[in-house]
């Protein structure tokens, strides 16, 4: 069986072995209530719109204002705006992560993020003599590069936090309107009504 975590995840896909977030013990209270409620009335699913952008207005729920700003910068450096499409900031990634953490079933993920952001600040202080939000864009990139240097075999706490930061960023971005449609130009979200079921018929 595959060892490497990404591929391990992929190994049984038809199986949910690869599921990441729930796997990290992050199920929300609201999910529980939602399921229990769904359990009483077997009604068709409510069509909730759950995209990153939808969370944006009310944030932050968990982060402080400074933390939210740090997460905005960090996530936007991971998936930046380019010629093709807007990046993580425009897609509301930080607010999405904030919402998920606020609702988490477990305490652990919130701790990981609070501690992780403190470490990012401390690393920036050590490297450049100032906190992350005061650092120049180049200095911020240098901090991220340091955190990312052992991506596949993270050792230090900062390196481990990078994996978490990236995983959440990517999850939020590529499930947002911008990520799915503008960046990936994916059409799968619309039913392909024009297709006949069978090519020969």
């Amino acid at each position: 069986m595959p060892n490497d975590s990404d591929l391990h995840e992929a190994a049984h896909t038809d199986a949910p072995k690869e599921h990441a977030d729930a796997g990290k013990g992050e199920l929300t209270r609201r999910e529980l209530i939602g399921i229990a409620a769904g359990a009483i009335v077997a009604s068709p699913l409510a069509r909730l719109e759950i995209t990153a952008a939808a969370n944006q207005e009310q944030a932050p729920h968990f982060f402080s204002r400074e933390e939210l700003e740090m997460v905005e910068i960090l996530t936007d450096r991971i998936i930046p705006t380019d010629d093709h499409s807007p990046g993580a900031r425009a897609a509301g990634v930080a607010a999405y992560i904030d919402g998920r953490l606020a609702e988490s079933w477990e305490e652990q993920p919130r701790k990981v993020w609070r501690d992780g952001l403190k470490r990012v600040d401390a690393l920036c202080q050590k490297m450049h003599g100032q906190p992350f939000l005061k650092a120049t864009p180049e200095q911020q990139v240098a901090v991220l590069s340091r955190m990312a240097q052992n991506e596949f075999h993270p050792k230090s706490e900062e390196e481990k936090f990078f994996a978490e930061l990236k995983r959440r960023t990517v999850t939020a971005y590529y499930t947002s309107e911008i990520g799915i449609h503008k960046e990936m130009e994916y059409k799968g979200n619309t039913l392909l009504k024009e297709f006949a079921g069978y090519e020969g018929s």
Partner: protein
Amino acid sequence: MAPISTDAVIVGSGAGGGIVAKELASAGWSVVLLERGPWLQSAGFGHVETRDGWVTGIYRVPFGPGPAEIRTVRAGESDSARIVRPRDPLYGTLPACVGGGTVYYGAMAWRFHRETLRLRSHFGLIPGANLEDWPVTYDALEPCYEKAEYELGVSGDENPFGPPRMRPLPLPPVGENTEARVLFPAARRLGWKPFHTPLAILSQAYRGRPACIRCAYCNGYGCEVGAKSSTLVSVIPQALATGNCRLVPNAFVREVTVDRSGKPDGVLFQTGTPGKGAWQKLRARVVVLCCSATETPRLLLNSRSRFFPRGLGNERDQVGRNIDNDGGLFVYGLFGDMVTDQVGPGVCFGVDDFQFRARGREGQSLGAGILSNYHTRGPLGFIRRVHVPENVQPFGAELKNFYRKYFLRSIWLYATCHTYPRYENRVDVDPSVRDARGLPVSRITFRQHPRNADEEQYMAERCEELLREAGATVVVKPLIQRESPQGISTHQVGSCRMGSDPQSSVVDRTGRVHGVPNVYVADGSLLPNPGGANPALTIQALAYWVSSHILRSR
């Protein structure tokens, strides 16, 4: 209120349970189908990856099991077990909803090979593996496979290496996606005989349901049009249409009860929020357990009484043993050109040249398995699985470009293969951990047999060979670990083994629990071993088999 009374109560409405409900109700039996999960409607299945996806759903998913449905896992008897929640990689989660696993499944509908039902005779004694020939032969099961294929509406080509069949599949293949253009010729250049995979997906309108509209969200999603033949849209509506079957969703069953003489007489169940509400008794002449290979043993073991102090059917300590799943792995290739598109279901290419013909590196004979291309993936589905090469910047514009570029320039091959069940692998109930209802939870003890790695290695090499032949510039194989302690997958089977000898099995060849006159099992638990392919069609063929014996028991 007097307890309701019925001819048969079926617990669990998934792959197996849906079929038993339809068979018994059609024969005129009064049937109650109890399902712990919600009754979702096809029209409500959507395409929001984070909400509707089995794999990617992270946020208020509509299906169960809910986060309170904990389990414990460990690799061996001497390890301490750890609590896991649903959809943890080690949990072995199957969906809880009417239709069970078949609502979200990929609908690959393989028959097992003849040899798969007699592995003990085929391989002889293999140290550390608990192989046993099935008490049913392939030829006896063949009509049941056919019935499943015709009632569900399986589409596809004749498999040139498949086991013998009396009738062709009822439907022609669902259309190809663009991957077929590179994979079919490449496989033929290697001398293989590729064909269009069998899918429980309608390629044409069939028995009142519409054809697949080829949306790009199939595996891991409910089908909005009802073209994927889950039991939710195929056999369960037929069962209800007879007027003899009552379906009760959100009804959790805790135990099978016995009367004063020790004969099972029904079940205790609860509806609504776990831990709230009263336990209700449902009387039944026959009880059929279809809760999946990880929940049926729990239900048996939690059914303790003065007559069955170790749990129902567990006098010989066999319940839950030998649990296993087929080996499953992915190999993918990155290409210079656009090789894939956004058309579902995606799976269309299959190769079955290797089962029981393959040889390992030391010349040992292998079971090996089947390879196919894989379902269409949305962006997150792709990104979660792709391994970004080390020469690509781990963040920033380079990373973003890599994802965009290779999203449609990659092909994923999926291989399933044979594995070797171990007696020590087991699902039982945890002695100290209880759920919100106060009931002992399933405890899974699981470690791979060392030979599984040889099977996987063989299939990974075949996948690589094909991708290279097809022109992939980069091929990424999984790292295969011997005796991996990783948990049981959704292809879980084997925990209430079917057999003639009560010393080494839980149910007899008709699916009836040894030593108990009226309790049957009809789900993945029955299979004495996994095959070289996904199990659902075999589970369903056996559900027809067991149903026919239940009907004869009257």
